[in-house]
């Protein structure tokens, strides 16, 4: 893989899970990467581990994606360290399952703030920096199959991911004239900390009866017969940041191993 300097990238929610895998692939492709995460302990540890192979090309920035100043600071750090921002991955997000009739305002607002508003702010701040520098950058948002089809036990999450898809389309229309593309990818069931927690929460809720049962029952609906690993997702995200997808904007690629066939 190329180690040439391709420019800078910011990945939110990059301390663990899919975000970390994406950051690793960006480093391998020659980008300098800002690990933007709300969790400094795990985030710093991730930077330390990734630095073994990519010394000097990966830095941490403490970011709560609902705080504009913090997102702006991460973008500024990227421009300062790596000479600009070419790729923005708005990936931070979380889920908290609740039975539909008990989904609370508190959960709704918390999820919407991070998963939806956080993506709007991320697109805006990255795009402003790209426009200022005349960079025809690529903005990529993490949606979900839940944004295409609502799940009963995580209504706010499903709604927030539909927002991500809508923001991807609005952003694409707003920024095409500047040569900036905005696309999204939508993972299905992926073996990540988010899904481990989801599985545990569904068990605690009584929606499943044994650890792993909820995840496995979803897996049985997947044509390829297994849940995804974070690395299964990365290939598609790499396609979206590569010149191979230059004519794509406003699109959502589902990486679900054949689940909802949309």
């Amino acid at each position: 893989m190329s180690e040439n300097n391709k420019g800078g990238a910011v990945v939110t929610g990059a301390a663990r899970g899919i975000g970390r895998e994406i950051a690793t692939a960006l480093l391998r492709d020659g980008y300098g990467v800002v690990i933007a995460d709300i969790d400094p302990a795990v985030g710093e540890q991730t930077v330390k581990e990734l630095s073994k192979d990519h010394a000097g090309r990966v830095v941490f920035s403490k970011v709560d994606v609902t705080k504009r100043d913090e997102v702006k600071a991460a973008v500024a750090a990227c421009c300062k360290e790596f000479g600009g921002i070419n790729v923005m991955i708005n990936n931070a997000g979380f889920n908290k399952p609740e039975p539909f009739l008990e989904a609370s305002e508190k959960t709704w607002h918390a999820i919407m703030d991070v998963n939806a508003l956080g993506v709007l702010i991320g697109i805006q701040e990255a795009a402003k920096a790209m426009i200022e520098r005349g960079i025809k950058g690529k903005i990529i948002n993490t949606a979900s199959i839940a944004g295409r089809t609502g799940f009963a036990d995580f209504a706010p999450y499903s709604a927030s991911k539909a927002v991500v898809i809508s923001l991807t389309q609005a952003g694409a229309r707003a920024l095409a004239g500047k040569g900036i593309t905005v696309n999204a990818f939508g993972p299905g069931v992926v073996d990540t900390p988010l899904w481990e927690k989801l599985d545990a929460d569904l068990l605690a809720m009584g929606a499943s009866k044994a650890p792993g049962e909820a995840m496995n029952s979803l897996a049985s609906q997947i044509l390829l017969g297994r849940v995804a690993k974070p690395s299964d997702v990365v290939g598609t995200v790499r396609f979206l940041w590569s010149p191979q997808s230059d004519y794509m904007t406003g699109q959502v690629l589902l990486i679900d191993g054949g689940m909802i066939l949309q």
Partner: protein
Amino acid sequence: MSAKTGVLTGAAGGIGRATAERLAADGWSLVLVDQFDNVADVAKGIKAKDGQKVIGVVADITNPDQYGAIDAAIASIGAPLKFLGLVAGVLQQVGSIETLDIAEWDRVFNVNLRANVFLMKHFIPALRAAKGASIVTVSSWYGKSGHGFFGAYCASKAGVISLTHTAAAELAADNIRVNSVAPGNVATSMHLDALREEAEKRSVTFEEMKKTEWDKIPLGRAAYPSEIASAISFLAGPDGSYLTGATIDVNGGCLFT
């Protein structure tokens, strides 16, 4: 890289030729199929590295009796068939449903949909035997939304997307992934001819028609054939290994679905 063979239909057309170039660069040996004689010259013009072969075969894909020549070409390459690229397609005579000759409807469906069923039926056993293969269909943004005067074309391409889903569901257990690329407007002779014909139909100039269509595209231009080829390459390659039943919209933003 281990040797692998792909079959590509519509290989003498704009998208087909660009896809052949791209896949050859990716390391594939290829059998290029087209109804037009110049497919042999197209095959000769593709840069192949040592150990790679690119062979042109003239065949009418609507007639399975002519598939023997494709099989012979695959056998002469000698590497397992791991990719089927269903690029071939035709436009229709532009016209309303009311006036459309049903023979024209049948012609469009024969090439765009029925031939792809024949090709899948014929090549699934070889793809299955390769233990890890994929099929990519080329549909269209016109298959995701209907458009006046293009009833047969739109419906045939919607059928391609549906066929892609069904094949994905049936073949996942055989480790064959099936996906589609849905181009928007691509700057090929097929697109430019269609603009010319639609301009006549709507009594406007070609330039006006082109402007009307391209103004609908956020990125402001039609695609280069190579930009469709790069999506096909992605779906055929290792980075797309968890995708099946998916449709990638490479349309410059002219349709969001």
